């Protein structure tokens, strides 16, 4: 598949001496939605900033559309859009003018029809003559999205697009982003919401402490790392896992009152659930009584938490 953005060996050490990115390698495919997942301070915004010209890389290279950003920044930036994490823009400007200015700043001639289309799609048309400061937080965020779309970018960065946006609006935003992809825009978004990555991304990259821990197809990641988890509540607490159960990936929890099973291949794989069936039979054979079984497939969230725990260890 064709790559639209190629980052290699990207390191950023801020003036204060803090290293926010440690040799990041990342390749983004044309037309995909890529979710960059990571906890606070992981380096997501720094990574985006380095591509968009807000942050000067300490070392490493960034190629967009096959050309080096360092030398061809002028022509390349014209094809890239950025929606920043912070709600920062001239708050006294009316919406319509602000979005029009964004298009002009990127060197394009005015196109009222295009701006109207963008504002309508983001449900901002009715607010077009209001000063941005008078809008709600979620609307302000959409204004920033409209500004970033005003020059028709082929590659769009959305730094936490749904921060401070209510559930309904978030779904609306997801639809908008899906629509962008249909039109061929490549989208890179950062998020804390696993749900969001799970819902929309084609691929997910997990970043922590300035390092990319893993990048994979969302589906593959869930299959590879996903687990079936079963929590079996015992009527009598156990001191140790009996030998008869040692063949199973189980452990004891909550002072021996809960037997935890973690195994199987996860998503779409029945190996886990059938092994749990075997486990219950073994329990009965061993004369261990249980009162409840709670069985579920681990989500991207569990995978994420596991990865970060592993990274911290």
């Amino acid at each position, binding site marked *: 598949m064709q790559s639209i953005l190629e980052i290699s060996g990207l390191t950023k050490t*801020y003036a204060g001496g803090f290293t926010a990115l440690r040799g990041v390698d990342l390749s983004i495919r044309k037309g995909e939605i890529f979710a960059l997942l990571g906890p606070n301070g992981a380096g997501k915004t720094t990574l985006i900033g380095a591509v968009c010209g*807000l*942050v*000067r890389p300490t070392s490493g290279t960034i190629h967009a559309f096959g050309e080096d950003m360092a030398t061809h920044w002028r*022509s390349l930036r014209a094809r890239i859009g950025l929606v920043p994490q912070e709600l920062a823009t*001239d708050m006294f400007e009316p919406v319509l003018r602000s979005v029009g200015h964004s298009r*002009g*700043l990127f*060197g*394009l001639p005015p196109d009222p029809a295009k701006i109207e289309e963008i504002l309508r799609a983001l449900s901002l048309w009715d607010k077009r003559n209001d000063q941005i400061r008078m809008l709600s937080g979620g609307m302000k965020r959409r204004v920033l999205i409209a500004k970033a779309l005003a020059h028709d970018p082929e590659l769009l960065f959305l730094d936490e697009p749904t921060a401070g946006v209510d559930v309904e609006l978030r779904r609306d935003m997801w639809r908008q982003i899906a629509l962008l992809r249909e039109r061929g825009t490549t989208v890179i978004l950062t998020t804390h919401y696993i749900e969001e990555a799970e819902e929309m991304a084609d691929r997910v990259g997990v970043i922590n402490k300035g390092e990319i821990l893993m990048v994979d197809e969302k589906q593959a990641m869930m299959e590879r790392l996903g687990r079936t988890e079963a929590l079996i509540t015992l009527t009598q607490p156990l001191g140790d896992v009996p030998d008869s159960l040692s063949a199973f990936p189980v452990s004891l929890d909550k002072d021996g009152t809960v037997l935890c099973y973690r195994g199987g291949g996860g998503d779409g794989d029945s190996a886990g659930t059938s092994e749990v069936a075997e486990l219950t039979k073994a329990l009965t054979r061993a004369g261990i009584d249980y009162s409840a079984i709670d069985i579920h497939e681990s989500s991207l969230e569990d995978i994420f938490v596991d990865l970060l725990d592993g990274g911290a260890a």
Partner: protein
Amino acid sequence: MSLFNARSAWTIYKRELFRAFRTALQSIIAPVLTTTLYFVVFGAAIGGQMQGGMGGVNYGAFIVPGLLLLTLLGESTSNASFGIYMPRFTGAIYELLSAPVGVAETLVGFVGAAATKSLILATIILVTASFFVDYSIAHPVYAFGYILLVSASFSLFGFILGIWADSFEKLSVVPMLILMPLTFLGGTFYSIQVLPEPWRSVAMANPVVYLVNGLRWTFYGSSDVSIGLSLGLTLLFLAICVALISWIFRTGWRLRA
């Protein structure tokens, strides 16, 4: 792609002027008021006592170029510095930094807008002054050119100030504590010829002296220092500002983290 995008520059320029018109009252009324006050105090009250005038010109008329310069320096500097400091402060500068815009477009936009405001102001001040004193401009074309040059230079200077400053305090400190005293001591309201030595020589070290006298020459055809020297120094100042700004953009100093 070309090296200069006129549309980007025009957008920045337009946006800055919109911003100025939002605060039009403050940015126009204030200078008109101060100019009026200066004329009442210096022109009418003090100037009335000065029979011989100064430098062969009626005192009220004599202070017109000085007053004009006083306002031009202050307003050009503060307009341009606020223009770039505010988006840095709020974070709105992200858009400029991520746009396909280089130093040329940024300068033409921000500095052009600040200089335009200064020219509008200069016109207002000259019109206001005409209500108080009779004055004439000996070399109108030179006067216009010189006002433009000073406005552009100090807008550039203000731009640098707005990038250098990391607090509102620093933003106001330079105009208040450096520019203002230098202007007052730079022969705005008097010819430095009237100063006794050693003060006259000391005054010659004040760069504003050359600015005031340059402008005064365009008004009255005579001044304390030669117009060539004034012009040369102003152009030198402009060149230094441009060089500094190019360096700022090349290194990203205080603009890019």
